[in-house]
């Protein structure tokens, strides 16, 4: 290799965070979907919402390397916050999202201190335990949450006072995609920032980060809080667009689903979360349309295969393929 000039290096580094052509194309897909699949808008908004949820987990797991089996807790918390606000007289959607982000973020901040230390195994079990506690609370506080019947009577006002949520899910879809896009942009800035770089470094070698004088624990707390707030917004979106909160939204199933989506798409690249959510939800839609057991079986089989042969997820496979074909990543 030639010795690189400083100028070249500077340009090399600047290019890292620049938008690539493929990224513009990706964001045309949700617009195209509006026209191509007008009868599936509610499924599509669920995909966008789960994409945001998976994105929140990617910030935590893909960038900072913190495993979690209980991310559904924050999703569910956000859903209940937005749902309860809507039920008890405040149906303004954007402030509902903000409130959900605040509450979920605060809970994320507090619970992050429980996962600071410890191995992956303790983290997995502690996060699982926290999520189970929260879902048990939601289940038992029937008077507030509706328990297993779900929270009904959620009334959401028009978005920005202009667009009323309609039966066809048009407004819901546009709203969900818009929120996803804005939060994606923010996440993209964050992962390319020095802070994002430091998270990646913590994931790769925490010991060295301590030795570099990085306040590692505070960084982890910060990303836990951020990730929880994102998950809370995703939950709130679901509550607002469906005007209902089920107990499922806070259960173990949600935590497992989001983890599977993220791993399926590929961790640590943001788009992996979106692709994973799309693939997962589409497969579920098709397979569980045949019989529910089918879906469960093939989901299980897919997980086993994924761990055996494709730990990088779909994007990992694409990378391998590209390397085989000789297009090394720039």
């Amino acid at each position, binding site marked *: *290799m*030639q*010795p*690189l000039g*400083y100028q070249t*290096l*500077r340009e*090399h*580094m*600047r*290019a*890292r*965070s620049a938008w690539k052509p493929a990224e513009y194309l990706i964001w045309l897909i949700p617009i195209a979907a509006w026209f191509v699949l007008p009868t599936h808008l509610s499924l599509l908004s669920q995909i966008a919402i789960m994409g945001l949820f998976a994105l929140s987990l990617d910030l935590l797991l893909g960038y900072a390397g913190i495993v979690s089996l209980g991310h559904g807790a924050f999703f569910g918390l956000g859903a209940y916050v937005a749902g309860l606000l809507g039920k008890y007289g405040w149906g303004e959607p954007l402030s509902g999202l903000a409130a959900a982000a605040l509450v979920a973020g605060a809970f994320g901040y507090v619970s992050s201190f429980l996962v600071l230390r410890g191995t992956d195994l303790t983290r997995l079990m502690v996060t699982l335990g926290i999520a189970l506690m929260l879902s048990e609370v939601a289940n038992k506080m029937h008077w507030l949450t509706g328990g297993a019947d779900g929270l009904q009577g959620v009334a959401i006002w028009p978005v920005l006072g202009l667009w009323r949520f309609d039966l066809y899910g048009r407004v819901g879809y546009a709203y969900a995609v818009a929120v996803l896009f804005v939060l994606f942009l923010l996440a993209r*800035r*964050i992962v*390319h*920032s*020095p*802070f*994002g*770089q*430091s998270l*990646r*470094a913590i994931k*790769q*070698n925490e*010991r*060295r980060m*301590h*030795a*570099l*004088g*990085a*306040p*590692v*624990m505070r960084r982890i707390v910060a990303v836990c809080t951020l990730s929880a707030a994102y998950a809370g917004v995703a939950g709130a979106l679901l509550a607002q667009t469906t005007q209902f909160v089920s107990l499922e939204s806070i259960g173990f199933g949600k935590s497992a689903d989001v983890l599977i989506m993220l791993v399926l798409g590929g961790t640590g690249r943001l788009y992996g979360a979106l692709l994973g959510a799309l693939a997962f939800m589409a497969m579920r839609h098709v397979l569980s349309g045949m019989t529910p057991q089918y879906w469960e079986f093939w989901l299980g089989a897919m997980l086993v295969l994924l761990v055996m042969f494709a730990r990088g997820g779909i994007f990992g496979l694409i990378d391998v393929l590209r390397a085989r074909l000789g297009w090394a990543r720039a």
Partner: protein
Amino acid sequence: MTAVLETRDLAKNFGGITAANGITLSVNAGARHALIGPNGAGKTTLVNLFTGALRPTRGEILLDGTDITHLPQYRRVKRGLVRTFQVSQLFPGLTPLESVALAIAERKGIAWRWWRPFGREAGLFDEAAQLLDELGLLDCATGPTSRLPYGRQRLIEIALALALKPRVLLLDEPAAGVPRDESVELFSRIASLPRDVTVLLIEHDMDIVFRFAERITVMVNGGVLVDDVPEKVAADPRVREVYLGEAGHG
């Protein structure tokens, strides 16, 4: 001469094992100080106590006369106490340029910034490139760290420490596993550090130690055996016994 780094009766027990046993030691400002001793003497434990990776069972650590015994690791680094690792602790997925730039960002306190892209902090990368250039690492600055040959990885280990502009540098066997000719280069680089940087070196190679050090501390079984200038240490019968004894086993 003023002491920059001191310990007073520092001790560390792991369960029933005593890894550091009442160490009282002082490293002078600007010193070229070596720490030697047979395997298991507690040298790396001492470094870990200095940096805060381990908490002592008793005793205290002072940096510039201030008690730092209970400071978290990153605060000690902020005060200029920096270490390298015996086994390289690098970021396998980052490039050397990114790694060093990150270290600089931490030093400058801008690693909390979350909006402006990392790659656009131009000053960061110029400084990182310059440091890599000085260590002869510029040509591999943008490849993955994990694919570099071992000798180069050792150099990056040093580069990461230097990027923090240390006042006290703890080098834990910097040349471990590095071929002879490369290690000479490495030490000429260390020797050329400005005199206001204090260096505490852990090393097994006695040639290097005696060429480099102006003061030597010999540790045995978690305690200090001798602490003196190289000539006296070389002549000390107890030190000879320790090393001959070890040679006899090996």
